[in-house]
């Protein structure tokens, strides 16, 4: 179900543990640099946060102790002496094994675990102890994830009717995982309903014919049962009936089960459990393992259906529970590869040109081979590119989980709305965005969204909404987290900043300066240390991570209406759809996302307004024209030749303008090459790209072109035009 998300977490755990290890080793070696201490603290903090999201309670509990002790060190309230360092190192090792247990199953060494916890507790000051969360049984399994969900001691029975639609399979979901998840909660009986299966000859392998009836006896609350199906919501027909109406349903189910001969209708008794469960797990696999199985009623149609093979594959996969095999490669190597392939393609076109110029009668064979060469080169290029660019969807899915966890821990109701999940972002960016985004979202839930009663009092919907958006914005990736909460409490933020000595008492700050104090190191508005939200590392980490990626982060806030965090990241190597145009003999690329419409203009459509202004009339409305060449300083003003083509663009504020260019050539995917370090910021240009002929083309930023347009004064580029042509 959520296997891939959890895999990612474990993958990260590895990294974070390595970082912890490394930091501790450095400390052991005598390096007491605060940065090292902070790095370890953050790593453990991230492990704790992630583990909390997956309900790995033992891990959370231990990481929390570790972190608490380390916080004392960080705040210089405790000296890092040799015994403590040793204890921390051993604790770090124990964290490794806790993660391994959480991932691969198995038993924690309880004696060791308790011993370490006891040792760590000795370092935790009294008042801190009070703040640690309650259900801290030594070594015993605890339940932090379910703080708000009281443990229901009584067993309840749920009748579940589950009929997946075919879309569910196409999104990679597997019934068997759902069943396994249910089975983990209690006793489960499963029976297959194959009544919808058509005849063998008329079967559509893409269609979903099978349905299942499940009976689950569990102590878990209904919400946990529903949570299992959370990821297939909308992709299946699902009904979950609790004990309340059990009487009627039990009978119906009994009838159902009797009808299909799946199991005798004695629900509460365990016997049927073994058989039907086994059926689900084994039947699909069997036809493949045995060349000629005795055709059981269900088995025959299933052999031909793709569903039969899918569960098998998944079953096999679920057996090896470790993380999916991935290869971590130095990004620089990938970059070199990408550049080399780009050159290869350019080289091909030059070779083709040379051959065409050769005075040879029959070059057909060579051309055929050359064509093959070209295709191969393109394949390689696509392959290499795909290594780097990935949609943000998995990241967003993880964030949805974070928000759920955070809201249940804070007893607030929030929903996460995501947009632009298919925005492709460089892999590094995705990896390194996970931590900062987690912090932002947690903060949004913890500090942004108000308590339900406050929301109702403020006339808002009870359910807080957090909107997570990803988009490409003229050569940058823009990730936005917008909540409709209370907004930044500016007086309080200012007061805290003064208390913490971040700003002088008489400081005069603008609203946005106050908002940005949230990013100051050591700033935290949390009144108490909770399991969920940070200790003031949060926004500090966020800012560091974002600037580490070469990006920037902004916060805007309206009291009572909510706050918006905007992360703008450069796209060093992302791919973008662009329209290739020519402007004053230069080839340029305009991001397709900003183009609403293109049109070829004629004189009738152009209207003058005032001395210099020109408007383009489109279907009765008038849109200001902006001459791109003029705005970029590439054309003299007296050059009266009107550009032929107009690109209708819409700015962020929703205002429309027509960009005048000379011609449109093509629409294609381009690789974005940052101009950072090549030259300063250029008004109107977002980045550059390399076209198929090896030439560099500027990627335009319509927003800044429009901003630069009125005073486009630099015509000294005229001379260099002649050089270039």
């Amino acid at each position: 179900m959520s296997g891939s998300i959890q895999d990612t977490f474990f993958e990260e755990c590895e990294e974070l543990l390595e970082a912890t290890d490394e930091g501790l080793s450095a400390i052991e070696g005598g390096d007491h640099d605060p940065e090292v201490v902070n790095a370890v603290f953050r790593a453990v903090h991230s492990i704790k946060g992630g583990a909390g999201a997956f309900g790995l309670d033992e891990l959370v509990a231990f990481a929390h102790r570790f972190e608490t002790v380390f916080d004392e060190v960080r705040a210089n309230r405790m000296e890092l002496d040799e015994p403590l360092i040793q204890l921390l190192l051993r604790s770090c090792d124990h964290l490794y094994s806790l993660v391994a247990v959480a991932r691969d199953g198995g038993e924690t060494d309880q004696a060791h675990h308790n011993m370490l916890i006891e040792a760590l507790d000795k370092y935790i000051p009294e008042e801190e102890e009070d703040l640690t969360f309650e259900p801290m049984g030594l070594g015993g399994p605890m339940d932090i994830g379910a703080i708000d969900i009281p443990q229901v001691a009584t067993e309840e029975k749920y009748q579940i009717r589950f009929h997946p639609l075919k879309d569910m399979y196409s999104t990679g979901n597997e019934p068997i995982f759902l069943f396994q998840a249910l089975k983990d909660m209690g006793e489960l009986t499963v029976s297959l309903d194959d009544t919808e299966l058509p005849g063998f000859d008329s079967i559509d392998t893409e269609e979903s014919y099978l349905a299942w009836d499940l009976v689950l006896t569990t102590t878990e609350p209904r919400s946990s049962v529903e949570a299992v199906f959370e990821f297939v919501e909308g992709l299946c027909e699902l009904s979950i009936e609790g004990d309340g109406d059990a009487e009627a349903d039990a009978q119906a189910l009994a009838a159902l089960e009797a009808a299909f001969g799946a199991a005798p209708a004695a629900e509460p008794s365990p016997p049927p459990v073994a058989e039907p469960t086994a059926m689900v797990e084994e039947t699909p696999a069997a036809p493949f393992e045995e060349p000629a199985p005795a055709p059981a009623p269900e088995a025959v149609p299933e052999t031909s259906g793709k569903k039969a093979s899918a569960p098998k594959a998944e079953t096999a996969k679920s057996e090896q529970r470790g993380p999916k095999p991935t290869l971590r490669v130095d990004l620089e190597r990938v970059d070199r590869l990408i550049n080399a392939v780009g050159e290869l393609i350019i080289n091909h076109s030059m070779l083709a040109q040379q051959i065409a110029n050769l005075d040879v009668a029959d070059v057909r064979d060579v051309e055929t081979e050359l064509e093959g060469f070209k295709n191969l080169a393109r394949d390689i290029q696509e392959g290499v590119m795909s290594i780097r660019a990935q949609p943000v969807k998995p990241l967003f899915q993880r964030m949805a989980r974070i928000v759920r966890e955070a809201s249940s821990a804070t007893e607030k109701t929030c929903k996460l709305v995501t947009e632009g999940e298919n925005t492709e972002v460089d892999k590094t960016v995705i990896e390194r965005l996970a931590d900062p985004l987690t912090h932002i979202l947690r903060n949004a839930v913890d500090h942004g969204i108000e308590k339900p009663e406050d929301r109702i009092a403020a006339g808002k919907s009870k359910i807080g909404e957090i909107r997570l958006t990803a988009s490409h914005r003229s050569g940058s990736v823009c990730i936005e987290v917008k909540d409709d909460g209370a907004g930044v409490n500016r007086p309080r933020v200012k007061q805290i900043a003064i208390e913490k000595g971040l700003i002088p008492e008489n400081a005069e700050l603008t609203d946005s300066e106050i908002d940005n104090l949230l990013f100051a190191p050591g700033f935290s508005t949390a009144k108490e240390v909770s399991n969920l939200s940070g200790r003031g590392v949060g926004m500090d980490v966020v800012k560091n991570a974002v600037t580490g990626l070469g990006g920037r982060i902004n916060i805007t806030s309206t009291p009572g209406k909510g706050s918006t965090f905007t992360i703008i990241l450069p796209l060093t190597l992302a791919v973008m759809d662009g329209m290739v145009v020519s402007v004053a003999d230069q080839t340029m690329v305009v991001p397709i996302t900003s183009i609403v419409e293109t049109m070829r203009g004629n004189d009738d459509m152009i209207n003058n307004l005032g001395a210099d202004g020109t408007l383009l009339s489109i279907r009765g409305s008038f849109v200001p024209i902006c001459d791109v060449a003029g705005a970029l300083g590439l054309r003299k003003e007296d050059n009266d030749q009107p550009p032929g083509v107009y690109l209708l663009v819409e700015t962020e504020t929703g205002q429309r303008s027509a960009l005048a260019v000379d011609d449109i050539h093509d629409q294609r995917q381009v690789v974005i090459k940052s101009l950072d370090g090549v030259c300063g910021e250029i008004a109107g240009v977002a980045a550059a790209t390399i076209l198929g002929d090896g030439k560099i083309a500027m990627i335009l930023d319509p927003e800044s072109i429009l901003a630069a347009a009125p005073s486009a004064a630099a015509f000294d580029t005229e001379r260099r035009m002649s050089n270039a042509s």
Partner: protein
Amino acid sequence: MQAEVKQNDQEIKHAQFSEFVSFTVAGQAFCLKITQIREIRRWSPVTILPHAPSDVLGVMNLRGAVIPIYDLSARFGLETTEASERNVVIVVSAAGKPVGLLAESVSEIISINPEEIQETPPVDSRNTMEYIQGIISHDDNMVRIINLDAVISVPEQVL
């Protein structure tokens, strides 16, 4: 034994002499230490950077990397070069990043004993003084040694 001594002599000679590549810019002879140069390419049309200062010609694709090209002549305050296929782009490395310098043509590689390098006599040309590290006399001609750091440091503020 004899040969060995001779080899030692040569090594000493090598240690003392450094090799410079000389080239002409606007009719004047300049040179750069050979170790500063990554490669020399024939001029090919560049892509203009809008709003760039006049001595930044544009950007060029160097095996997948975007590198800026400076007109050395304009940089030195001399007349601007009308770039053509006869001209060369000297690719140097500035803080690990490649930068291209447009020169008229490359002349030769010369070995210079560091002792022969003379300080630049003060002249009333700010640009030149800033960009020239020293001068040497080679075959009765004056060759100016370029202070690479100064040339490629900060591109003038983009408008």
